[in-house]
C-alpha cells in the first residue's frame, strides 16, 4: 500500500468510528447493530490482555444475534436498568489503521475510546469508561461492516456497577 492510500484508509476508518460513536450517543442502537457483519462479534473482556472468551468470563461477549436481543431489550418500555436512559458522550482518538491479517477482515483499526456516562435517576451516576478498542472491519458493497469490535477497558477487572448500554 502506498502512503496516499494508507492515509485514505485511515481517514475512512476514523470517519467510521466517529459515525459509530454518534449512533451510540444518540441511542440509535438498531442502526449501530446494523454495522455488524452477520458473523460479527462484540467483545468487552473482563481481564487485561484476555485472549480467550470461552475459558474466561467477559463483561460482554456476544454474536450479532445475542447483541440483537440486547438492542431489542434496550427498546423495551420496562428495561429498568436503563431507565431513565443513560446519556453518553463518546470520544474516539489515536486512530491507526492496518490491513487485516486474517481472512474476511480487510482492515484492522485501533483507537482509544472514552465514554462519559450519566445515569439519571436513583443513582445519578457520572462515570467514565475508557480503554483501547480494536475494530476488525470488512469492506462490503454497503460499506464497512464490523467483524469484531473489542474494547479493552483499563478497569475491566474492577468492581463495577451496572453497565446498561454498549460502549
Amino acid at each position, binding site marked *: 500500500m502506498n502512503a496516499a492510500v494508507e492515509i485514505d484508509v485511515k481517514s475512512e476508518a476514523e470517519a467510521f468510528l466517529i459515525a459509530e460513536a454518534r449512533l451510540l450517543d444518540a441511542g440509535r442502537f438498531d442502526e449501530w447493530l446494523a454495522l455488524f457483519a452477520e458473523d460479527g462479534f462484540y467483545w468487552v473482556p473482563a481481564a487485561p490482555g484476555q485472549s480467550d472468551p470461552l475459558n474466561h468470563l467477559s463483561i460482554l461477549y456476544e454474536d450479532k444475534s445475542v447483541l440483537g436481543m440486547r438492542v431489542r431489550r434496550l427498546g423495551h418500555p420496562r428495561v429498568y*436498568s436503563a431507565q431513565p436512559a443513560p446519556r453518553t458522550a463518546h470520544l474516539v482518538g489515536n486512530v491507526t489503521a492496518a490491513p487485516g491479517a486474517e481472512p474476511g477482515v480487510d482492515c484492522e483499526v485501533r483507537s482509544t475510546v472514552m465514554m462519559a456516562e450519566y445515569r439519571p435517576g436513583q443513582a445519578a451516576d457520572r462515570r467514565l469508561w475508557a480503554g483501547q478498542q480494536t475494530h476488525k472491519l470488512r469492506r462490503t458493497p454497503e460499506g464497512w461492516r464490523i467483524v469484531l469490535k473489542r474494547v479493552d477497558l483499563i478497569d475491566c477487572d474492577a468492581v463495577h456497577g451496572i453497565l446498561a448500554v454498549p460502549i
Partner: protein
Amino acid sequence: MPDSIAPDALRRLVLPDRVHRSLYTDPAIFDLEMTRIFGRCWLFLAHESQIRAPGDFVRARLGREDVIVVRARDGRIRALVNRCTHRGAQVCQAERGNTAGFACPYHAWTFGLDGALNSVPHRQSLPPDFDLKDPRLALAAVPRVESYRGFVFGSLAPGGESLVEHLGPIAAVIDNVVDRAPDGEIEQAGGVARQEYRGNWKLHHENANDTLHPGFVHESSVSAARGDPRDYAAPAYDGHQTHTQMLSNGFGVREWQSLSLTGFPAGHSYMGGFYRGGVLSPDRDDPVWREYRARLVARHGEEKTARVLGEDRFNNLLYPNVSINAQYQQIRVVTPLAVDRTRVTAFCFRLKGAPEALFHRAVRFLTNLSSPASMILSDDIEIFERVQGGLANSEPEWLDQSRGLGADRTEAGGRTVSAGLSELPHRAQYAAWLRYMTAAA
C-alpha cells in the same frame, strides 16, 4: 461494640408476616449484624483449589475483617487478618498469589505463612523483653477455619456449632457440585466477577428465591428473547444458552407455583430449578452432555449418576453469605460493606474430567448472570437500589412478607416447604436472623 439493642426491641422488628424498615436502613442494626451474624456464623471464604500449594493465598472478607486465606507449609489452611501488628499497615495487597511469607512494607516486619512474626529490623533498638514469639505479635488468626469437601469457611467465634452442624441439609448442594465431577474434584477457574450495589445485603438473598419478581423485573429480557425465535438445532457460539437464560424468567404463574421452596431454621433456603430449554435443561441431550454423562456413569454407575444429575435446586443460599447453583457450577458470595452497600462476587467451577465444552457453558452462565452488563442481574440490582431508595422514607415502617403465609408446611428437622410463589424463604431468613441477633454471646 453496639451490643446495645435489647433482644425485645429486635423481636418487635421481625414478625412472621412483616419486617421493619430499620433492618435495611439503621447503621446500628448493621453494626449488630456484623457482630452477631457475620461476626459469629460460618462464612464462605475460599475454595481449596485456589490455594492448592503451600504459600498459595487468596484474599477474602470475613464480616468486617480483611483476611488472607493461606495454605502453610504443613498444608494447613489459615485465615490471617491483613494488618501488621506493628503500626497497622496491610501486609498483603494482591488478591491472590503465592508467597514465602508476608513482609510489611512499612518497617519490614516479616511474618510466616502461619502468621508468626519471623523477623524485625534493628532488633537492638527494641526493649530486651521484646519476644518475637509473643502471640500478640503474630498476625491475628481467624479462630475457626474448616473445609467441607473443598469449600473453606471461617468463623470469628472461638466456639459454637461446627461447620457441618451449621450447614445441615443444605450441605447437599456442595456434595452435588463435587459429585458432578467425573474425576471427583472441582476447581475454581474462569475469573471472578465483582459488582457492588447501593442496597442492603439482605435484599440479594430475599430476591434470589423470590419467584414472583422475574415476570416483572426481567420482562424486558424475556420479551427480547421471545422476539428472537431461534432454531436450537442450529449451531451457536453459546449453544443458545443466553437465549435460554433470558427466556426462562418468563414462566407463567402456574409454572412458578409448581416449583417448591424450602427453608431451614439456620436461614438457608433453595428453590426448584426453572431452566427448561436446551443446554440448561435437566433433561438436556446434546453431544457434549452425552459424553459428560458417560464419563460420570464410569465413575458413579448409572443409578447414582441419575440421582446426581437429577438434582435441580436453584439458588441454594448457605446463610448468610453464599449462594450456590450446583447444576451450572456457579457460586456467588455476598459481602455487606455498609447498611446500604453490598458487594457480590461470583465465579464458577470446572468439573475435572468433564469435557472442556461443559466448562465453557459454566463460563457463559457466569458472564450472562454476573457481568456488570448482565441482561438479567442488572435489572435485579437496579431494583435493589430502588428498594433502598424507597426505604429511606420513614413511612410506612413495614415491609410485607405475607405471600403464602399459612401454607408453609413444617417437616422433620424444622425445614419448611411451600409452593413456588410463597415468601417462605424471606420468613425462614428472618426467623434465623432474629435468632442470631438475639443469641447471647
